[in-house]
């Protein structure tokens, strides 16, 4: 039980963090339109994972926050967007974008490994509820990773050759 609780807690933290990071990146790169819109969509998946982990966690004696990660204060969001627009006509933010996408990828990879662990402990303890949770959420985490990977692959040639 301790191992399950530990894994749930780590995952809950990881998904909450990723949801927040996706939204932050969406704001910071509001002039990179595809990143902006898709990152928001993907944050929705992590938010949903947070909720489901919190509900499931209760059965294991965990009190996890159901609410999504603390939304960025409105002013900060606005400042990020304004900053993105102000530097939107320059090539250098491309480097920042690549760094952000790389960080998102690593965050999602961490979550993916945690889902893997949860699925394994669920199987070992014949816990169908946990197995179902992992099987329904993990594919979305893998899709988040594939997206960051694809974005990096597609835009890095242009961004890095134009510096």
């Amino acid at each position, binding site marked *: 039980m301790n191992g399950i609780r530990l894994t749930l807690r780590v995952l809950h933290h990881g998904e909450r963090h990723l949801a927040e990071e996706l939204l932050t990146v969406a704001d910071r790169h509001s*002039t*990179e*339109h*595809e990143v902006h*819109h*898709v990152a*928001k*969509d*993907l944050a*929705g998946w992590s938010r949903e994972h947070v909720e489901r982990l919190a509900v499931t966690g209760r059965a294991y004696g965990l009190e996890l926050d159901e609410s999504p990660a603390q939304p960025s204060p409105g002013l900060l969001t606005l400042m990020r967007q304004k900053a993105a627009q102000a530097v*939107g*006509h*320059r*090539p250098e*933010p*491309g480097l920042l974008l690549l760094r952000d996408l790389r960080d998102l990828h690593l965050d999602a990879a961490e979550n993916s490994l945690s889902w893997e662990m949860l699925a394994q402990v669920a199987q070992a303890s014949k816990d169908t509820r946990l197995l179902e949770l992992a099987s329904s959420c993990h594919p979305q985490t893998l*899709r*988040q990773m*594939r*997206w960051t*990977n*694809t974005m990096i*692959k*597609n*835009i890095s*040639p*242009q*961004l890095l*050759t*134009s510096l």
Partner: protein
Amino acid sequence: MEDSVDRIAEPWGGRTPYSRHGAWPTRVDTHLAEGVTEDEVQRWVQSASILHSDGDAMDIAVKDGRMVGVRGRAVDRVNRGRLGPKDLFAWQANASPDRLTRPLIRQDGRLVETDWPTAMDRVVARSRELLEERGPGSIGFYTTGQLFLEEYYTLAVLARAGIGTNHLDGNTRLCTSTAAEALKESFGCDGQPGSYDDIDHADVIALFGHNLAETQPVQWMRVLDRLEGADPPRLVCVDPRPTRVARRATVHLAPRPGTNVALLNALLHETIRHDRVDHEYIEAHTVGFEELAARVKDCTAEWAAAICDVPARLIVEAAEVLGGADRLLSTVLQGVYQSHQATAAAVQINNLHLIRGMLGRPGAGVLQMNGQPTAQNTRECGANGDLPGFRNWENDEHVADLARVWNVEPATIPHYAPPTHAMQMFRYAEQGSIRMLWISGTNPAVSLPELSRIRSILSGERLFVVVQDLFLTETAQLADVVLPAATWGEKTGTFTNADRTVHLSDKAVEPPGEARPDLDIFLDYAARMDFRDKDGGPLIPWRDPESAFDAWKRCSAGRPCDYTGLSYGLLRGGSGVQWPCTEDDPSGTPRLYTDGISWAHPDRCEAYGKDLVTGASSGVVEYRSLNPDGKAMLKAAEFMPLHEAPSEEYPFQLTTGRTVYHFHTRTKTGRTPQLNAAAPDVWVEISEADAAARDLAEGDLVEVGSPRGSLRGRLRVTGLRRGTLFVPFHYGYWDTPAGFGPNASVPGRAANETTVTDWDAASKQPLFKTAAATLTLVEKGSGRHSPAPTTTASEPGRDSGVPATEGGPDARVRQTTDDGSSQEGGRQ
């Protein structure tokens, strides 16, 4: 029998009814300039229409070196002699007095006339400078869906192997990239499975976001003729507007814009729940059925009804009609492609056909339509974000094969990432990593979303803009070099319509002044740049359209779009032929996938597929494990909430679109007297309920606003769905005193002042149909009317007092049928 019809008042002309499985009767439409009789026509020159994706075959009448009219080609299977209003009248725009006749270059901030060598030297000097200083990634090409095959192919070779840039796309990105992507996702390869002839045989025709009556009027005539004949088809229409299609439909669903995936998942749910599926076909030809069934398991009609805001019983009824069809034809267009989750929705329509086994037989087909006339050619030739001949950029053997055709090293052809799509090219230009953009035959300053942004990019100091066009368009006014181009009727070439039919279009008259065919311009540039192959020979050895066509035939050999059986000789005098067409099979191929799926094998497929929601690439390993034998793929997708939903601040959903009297950015149709008079200015459509609630009426001047910008137009109250506004797109500024954009005295007029910069993650097609908007009254109409036509989806309600749209004597068209008894005039 002969008959003369006002084809502005009656866009679809008279009826020639025919019965199911019968032959569509011939009706030859002829329109000649006033005072010219048929006897006076000196030559009839073979061509086809480039004002929509049908490719209506026609002959151009020539007298004393001038175009004096057109006549439909009775022998052609696409139109059997019929022409749409744009086909009939828009040829006149070729002779407009404001055609560009000399190159222009920018000097001291102004465009001034110059000669060709000066203009081309400037383009070449800038190209060389950038190649040296910043590399091939600093140069981009943005072309159109209205040039000829030979021109796209030449452009693809010079851009990919000459410059070596990854940045080449067509404005077909805005109209047809979802069609291509959906076909690749389901069948592993682009290429329309069906044929227009399927209209003759279907018992159910489903039109998804496709206002066929206005975008492909001749094929709508075909549907109307079937509706008047024995054993007529039943129509299912999905469209928020009360289109002519909707009025004739057995079931009309008017979903909330942006909810197509929810609706389609419910239709799939109903189809599977009632086991209206062809298990044998699924087993033999597809993979992924279990996942699809699981994905739509909970997508009940009630669930979708809440999201789409349509009655659940109508969804059930539609599913019954679709599920009861014995030959189902579906057509798909911008209501799906330019909307939220475009590819995901289009793929669900393929899925419907695959699980019902409705493919590869007469009447059982899918038409993932194109908006632009030669969109198919940009896709085949690799001028739209694919490699030529539907080669897979991720498959090294395909790239090596292409390198062999071009006699270059494979590394010369950029294939480290997917070819850059148009929206990303504009982003790179905004950012400053693309420094030269060569725009041919299109007008992004009107057609792209968020126009204030596009104008700012195009007019930026850093970006060198070359524009090649017929007129001083809104975009050309912002260019550094303007190259005057010849157009349809002034040059020779071939082009391919949405059902893979290749037509030849011959030169009928000389272009005005020093205007030159696009092919000549590209060849001139290639020669001046001195592009070489790996043996030091010229990279582009061809000199004229026919030798360019022969070069393309070699490139297409063995590919799905095999042209090797075609020649100018075969096409000239005859009629359109559908590819693939080989020497062994010179009559072409009416339908793909008659014997199962043939191009989805991992070694042969054009693409390994993408995640329909995120656009992430799947990669060869995943593709191979999912689809080792190369079957059709049933790809499921979940509904995702809209990116820009209506709010208190922006309560309306704004949708935009084309109408029967205008095309592209009105560069031609706005200069055609009959077409311009029928729809001279932008308007705003609103539902009766919304108008009543806000005390608004026909003719009121209103402002439509979004977070990006605003436009003004007069109001038309129609049967549009509640909460939605419709604005016809592509009214621009060239015919206003403002020039290229709104100014202090000319308010916004283009729909794209308001649309959002957002695109489908899989197809990269921009979303033009899902902006949130406000509506404010500027001034009461006081008896004035909106300029919207009364003959189309913008038809006003009863007792509106709006005078009927008519064309008068100049719009009369002669219609000749073989059998007088079947010819009936009258409105539809």
